[in-house]
């Protein structure tokens, strides 16, 4: 058990920021992102420690669990994935106020534009450019071939650029 805990502890350290950011970008609430990220890791740990079914790809399992939880969250609350303009991004508090204000404003703009894209476009951008996953892994997560994923990523960027010009 200790060996499993150690192994999962490393997985947690490696992915916790990525999963939190992924969830946060979808739910736009720190508290909800914390709850869903926590639940994502708890569920993954349960399966991981039982070894049944065996998790072949931990990162894919984590992102898929997070996606399911996000879907459940919106279904249960009867909410739609709309980003509130008042939502405050979570940034490094050590930065000076002016710099932080500029950064927050830019982050708001990008996040708002991103949230208005199709889910596959959003995920492709997050996984490939933010989480820097290999193209093969992004393709697996999107259940597409690598060439199809490249095309999707390219279209996603184009769509985001158009959105940014509007917001």
């Amino acid at each position: 058990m200790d060996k499993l805990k150690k192994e999962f502890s490393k997985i947690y350290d490696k992915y916790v920021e990525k999963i939190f950011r992924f969830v946060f970008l979808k739910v736009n609430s720190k508290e909800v992102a914390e709850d869903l990220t926590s639940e994502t890791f708890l569920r993954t740990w349960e399966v991981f420690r039982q070894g049944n079914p065996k998790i072949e790809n931990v990162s894919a399992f984590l992102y898929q669990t997070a996606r399911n939880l996000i879907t459940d969250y919106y279904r249960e609350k009867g909410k739609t994935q709309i980003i509130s303009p008042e939502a405050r991004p979570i940034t490094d508090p050590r930065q000076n106020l002016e710099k932080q204000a500029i950064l927050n404003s830019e982050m708001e703009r990008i996040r708002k534009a991103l949230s208005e894209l199709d889910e596959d476009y959003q995920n492709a951008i997050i996984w490939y450019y933010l989480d820097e996953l290999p193209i093969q892994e992004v393709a697996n997560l999107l259940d597409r071939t690598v060439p199809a994923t490249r095309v999707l990523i390219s279209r996603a960027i184009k769509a985001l650029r158009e959105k940014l010009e509007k917001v």
Partner: protein
Amino acid sequence: MTTEKEVIEKIKVLKQIKPEKKWVFLTKEKILGKEPIFFPFLKPAFAGLLFILILLGLSFTSLPGEPFYLIKKLVERGQTVFVPEEERPKLELELANKRLEELSKIAEKNDVKKLAPAINEAKESVANATKNLVKSKKVDKEIVQKTLELEKKKQEVEKVLGTKITEEGTEDPTKLVAKYLIEDFENRTLTDEQKQILEKAKGYFENGDFAKVLELLLTIGQ
């Protein structure tokens, strides 16, 4: 107009979104339980090492007849293995000095139970020193000094215990060193004054005062 490359750069701003460190820590603890505080020295491998160090520490001050004395002897014997042949007499003299010190401590405390093993250890050790001196037949200033030290301690202990430390049938190390030293000086070119000292030393040798021989001849060497 923003290029796609610029858009990609802008996306990276979102990397600033991070969970609070405290939340990260507490959530991990909630899922996996508290992580045990890591004490490296409590791990089995370190515990073994610690045990050995404690044993060595305890054995260092132990006396003949005590539980950890055997370890002390083993460590000392281990040291002699790595010492070159020409240095062996010095080391054996050092060990014999240690044995006499131990015997002296036991005699002071009047610890009757440990006395017999301590006398045996001292006798064996002095015999070993003698054997190595016979083997090498070489003496230098350090050997003479160590032998003098040994002789002094031996005399003190013999006086207190009323028993001889040199085993029967073996030569006395002081006598042996005195003999080698005289032979050595006889083969050297000496000044008149040095010749006189050597003659005087020979006289002491005839009278069995071997320690005096060493003291005298040490002055020539200086």
